[in-house]
C-alpha cells in the first residue's frame, strides 16, 4: 500500500453547486481558452501587443468592421438559436449545415422559377426555405422517434447528401449562364433581403424576432416548460404523460427552420446568389454558440455577436498577417474544448488524499 502513503488525488461528485460558481468556472474556462488561443496567434506571428487592438478595438470602433460584425452575427445567431432549440429536447442536431443548404436551395428554386408576384417573392422564398429546412430536419427526427436511429449520425450524414445535391445543381442546371461559374444566377433586387440603411439588411430584425420567439417558447410557453422535463429526465417526462414525441418534433423542426434562415441570411442576404460554400463552418459555430449560451436563446444572440467579432478579426488577421482563416476555427475549437472540460470541475471536486 505504498501508493496510499504518498497520497493521491481523489475525485468525488459535487453535491451542491450554485449558479455563481457555474458562471465563474465557465468564465475562467473561456478565458483560459482565449489565453491559449492568444499564445498560438503570437507563435503564428501576430505581435502580442497588437492582439487586443486587432480583436477588440479595431472591430468594434471601426464602422465598417462593426457593420461586418453585425452582418456576420445574424446567420450565426440563427444557427446558434436553432441548435439551442434542438438541444433543449436532447436532440443533437448536427445537420444544421444540411438544413441551411436545403433552405437556400428551396429559396433559390422559388427565385429562379419566378414563383408569385415580385412583391410576394421574398416572402415566398423565406417560407420555402423554412419548409425545406424543417423537412431536412424531419428525416433524422422521425428516424430517431420511430426507429431509435441515433440522430448524431443520421443528421450529420444528411449534410453530405445536401452538399452533393447542391453541387449537382450548381454544376448542372443552375450554373450561371452569364459567367459559367458553378453558382446560381444572381437574384433580382426584390429577391434579396432589403437594405435597412447603414449597410445592414433585414436579417438583423428577422433574427431578433426569431430569438425572442424562441426565448418565449422555451422560457414561457407550456411546451417550453414541458421541454425542461424532456431535457432533464426523459423517463420522468414519459411517465408523467407529457407529449414527448410532439415536443421533440416541434423543437427539431424549428431548429431546422432556423438553420434554413441562417442559410438565407448568407445566400439571399449577403451573396445574392446560391454559392458552393456559403454554409461552411456554420454548423460547428451553431453548436459552439448553443453550448456556450447554455441553450438559452437570448444568450445565444450575445454569444453569436462575440463569435462574429472573432470571425471578422480573423478576416483582418488573414489580410494583415497572412494568418489562415482556419485559425478562427482553431480558436473556436479551443474555446469549446475549454468550456466542455470545465464541466468536470462543475460536477466533481478534486481533493488530495493522504
Amino acid at each position, binding site marked *: *500500500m*505504498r501508493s496510499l502513503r504518498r497520497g493521491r488525488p481523489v475525485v468525488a461528485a459535487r*453535491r*451542491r453547486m450554485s449558479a455563481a460558481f457555474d458562471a465563474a468556472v465557465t468564465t475562467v474556462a473561456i478565458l483560459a481558452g482565449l489565453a491559449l488561443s492568444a499564445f498560438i496567434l503570437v507563435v503564428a506571428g501576430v505581435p502580442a501587443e497588437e492582439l487586443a487592438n486587432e480583436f477588440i478595438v479595431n472591430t468594434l470602433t471601426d464602422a465598417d468592421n462593426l457593420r461586418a460584425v453585425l452582418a456576420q452575427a445574424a446567420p450565426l445567431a440563427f444557427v446558434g438559436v436553432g441548435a439551442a432549440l434542438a438541444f433543449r429536447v436532447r436532440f443533437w442536431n448536427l445537420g444544421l449545415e444540411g438544413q441551411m443548404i436545403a433552405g437556400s436551395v428551396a429559396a433559390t428554386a422559388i427565385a429562379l422559377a419566378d414563383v408569385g408576384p415580385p412583391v410576394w417573392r421574398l416572402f415566398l422564398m423565406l417560407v420555402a426555405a423554412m419548409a425545406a429546412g424543417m423537412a431536412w430536419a424531419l428525416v433524422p427526427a422521425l428516424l430517431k422517434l420511430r426507429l431509435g436511429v441515433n440522430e448524431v449520425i443520421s443528421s450529420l450524414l444528411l449534410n453530405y447528401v445536401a452538399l452533393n445535391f447542391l453541387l449537382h445543381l450548381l454544376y448542372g442546371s443552375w450554373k450561371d449562364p452569364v459567367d459559367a461559374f458553378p453558382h446560381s444566377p444572381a437574384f433580382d433586387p426584390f429577391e434579396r433581403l432589403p437594405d435597412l440603411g447603414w449597410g445592414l439588411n433585414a436579417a438583423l430584425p428577422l433574427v431578433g424576432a426569431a430569438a425572442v420567439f424562441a426565448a418565449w417558447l422555451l422560457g*414561457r*410557453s*407550456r*411546451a*417550453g*416548460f*414541458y421541454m*425542461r*422535463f424532456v431535457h*432533464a*429526465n426523459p*423517463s*420522468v*417526462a*414519459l*411517465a*408523467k*404523460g*407529457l*407529449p414527448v414525441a410532439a415536443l421533440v418534433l416541434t423543437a427539431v423542426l424549428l431548429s431546422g427552420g432556423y438553420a434554413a434562415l441562417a442559410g438565407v441570411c448568407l445566400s439571399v442576404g449577403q451573396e445574392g446568389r446560391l454559392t458552393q460554400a456559403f454554409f461552411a463552418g456554420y454548423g460547428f459555430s451553431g453548436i459552439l454558440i448553443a453550448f456556450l449560451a447554455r441553450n438559452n436563446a437570448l444568450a445565444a444572440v450575445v454569444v453569436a455577436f462575440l463569435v462574429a467579432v472573432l470571425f471578422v478579426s480573423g478576416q483582418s488577421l488573414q489580410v494583415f498577417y497572412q494568418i489562415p482563416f482556419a485559425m478562427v476555427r482553431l480558436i473556436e475549437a479551443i474555446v469549446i474544448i475549454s468550456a466542455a472540460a470545465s464541466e468536470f470541475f462543475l460536477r466533481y471536486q478534486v481533493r488530495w488524499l493522504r
Partner: protein
Amino acid sequence: MTVTTAAPALALSGVSKRFDGFPALDGAHFSVREGEVHALLGENGAGKSSLMNVAAGLYLPDEGEVRVDGVVRRFSGPLEAAACRIGMVHQHYKLVRALSVAENVMLAAMAVESQSAAGDRSADKVGTTASRAALRTSYGSRLARIRALIDDHAARLGFSIDHRRAVHTLSVAEQQRVEILKALVTGARILILDEPTAVLTDEEATRLLQTMRTLAAAGAAVVLVTHRLRDVREHADRVTVMRAGRTVAECDPRATSTAELTELIVGAAAPAVTRKAAAPGVARLAIRNLTCRRHDGFEVLANLSLKVRSGEIYGVAGVGGNGQTELVEALLGIEPPVSGEVIIDGVGDIAMASPAARQSIGVAAIPADRYRLALAGTLPIADNYGVTRVASGAYGSVLWVDFRRMRQEAAAGVREFDVQGVRRIEQPAGLLSGGNAQKLVIAREFASAPWLVVAHSPSRGLDVRACADVQRRLIDAREAGAAVLLVSEDLEEVLLLADRIGVMSRGRLVAEFDAPVDRQRIGQAMVDHA
C-alpha cells in the same frame, strides 16, 4: 500466510454500516467454511446484500472485521477481495455487453492479476518478476489461455457456453454462468451469489444450485444470498438468517421447520393498529389476467388479477423482484402488458393506453424509483410540483405559464405536506433527502383529492418519522374514499396499512387474505411459492 484448518474460509463479525444515518447493517456476523453451501436468508432490506458487499470489498464497514482464512483483511475495493480469492456474482450482472464471453472474463482476470502483482510487490520481491511476466504476455496468448480456462471450468460444471459469443446475445441464465466463470477463472474459492435464482426459471434454478453443490464438493465455499426457502431447504448445508441489519440465527436447514424459518425471517407479530373499519365501495381498479414479458420472453407477470375498491387499501406483499415493479409500471402505462385488462371504473380498459392518454384519469402515482418515474432531480421543486397540473390550465394558458402562481402553490403544498429542507422553492428537487423527495411526490400527487392511488414501496429508505407521515397520507386518502393499491416489499408496511392483502410470487398472485391476517401465513405464501 498460515492457514489453520479450524478457521472458516470467510468470517465477518460485528459488521455495521450506515447510509446517510440509516443503519443497513447493525453488528451482523456471518461465516462460511470450505466445502459447504451456506445460505444467507432474509427479507428485502434485511442487510444480506450489504453484508456480502462488505465481504466482496464494495463497502468499507463502519465497524467490524472481515477474516479470510483467519487473517483480518481490510478491502478498499473489489479487486483486493478478488486477490483474496473472493468472487461475487451480483444480482445485476457486471458484464460489458458488447464484448465476448472470453473478453469479459479476461477483463476481470487482467484486473485481478495486476492487483495481485501490486500486492506481491509490497509483500515480497520474489513474486514480482513472475507476475510482471504474466502481465506482459500478448493479447492473443492471454485470450487463448483464458479460453482454455473457461472451457475447462465450463466442462467441469456442465455449462455449455460458447466463449466467442457477445454477452448481449446471451440469455439471463447464460449471463449468470459467465459471471460465475469470471469468478472462478480469476481464482475465486469463496463464491458469493446474490439472489441467483430470482431471474431464473425453476429448472434453471435447480441446475444452478446443483452446480453450486458440485463446486462446494470440490472444496469451494459457496454463499447463497436468497429469500427463497425452497432453495435453502433443498440445497444448503447451513443457513444464516438476517433481519433488519442483524444476524438473528444460524441453523441447519434440514433440522428447522419451515414455520420456524419463516418466523425467523419475518420476526414476531407487529402491534395492531387501530383505525376505522374499511367501508369499501365500488371496484375502482380491476386488473384481469394481466401478463407481461421481459424482452427475452420471461414472464414477469402471469395472469394476475385483482380488484381495488374505493375506501380500501389493497396491499400487494411479496419479496422484491417477483413482478412488483412490472405490475406498477404496467398500471402506469410505462411498460405495456402482453395481454390482460386494466379496467378503471367509469373509464374502461386502459391496459394499452400511453401515459399521456392516462393523464386525464388522475391516478396518483408514487413509484418506487423516484428519479426515474416521478422527479427530475435537476429541475426546481416548483417545476416538479407543477408539472402534473400545468395541463389542466391551473398555471396559465398554453401560451404563458404563470410561474409565480406555480411557485406559490408549490410553496403551499410543500408546507402542507411538511417537506423539510426546502430553502428556496427554486432549488433543484435532487437536493432533497429521500424522505422529503418522497413527500414532495405525495404533495404533488395528492394536490387534488386522490381518487385512485398506486404506491410502490412508498416508505422504503425513509426514516421513522417520514415513514409514518407517508403511511398516514395513504390512510387519509383511504378514509377520504380513494382506492389505494399499495405494492410493497416491506411486509410490516403491508400488514400495518392494508385492508386486503395479495401475495405475489414469480409474477403470480398466489394468495389473498383479508386483514387482520396472521403474518405467518403471509410469510409462508411469500416463500413457499417462490
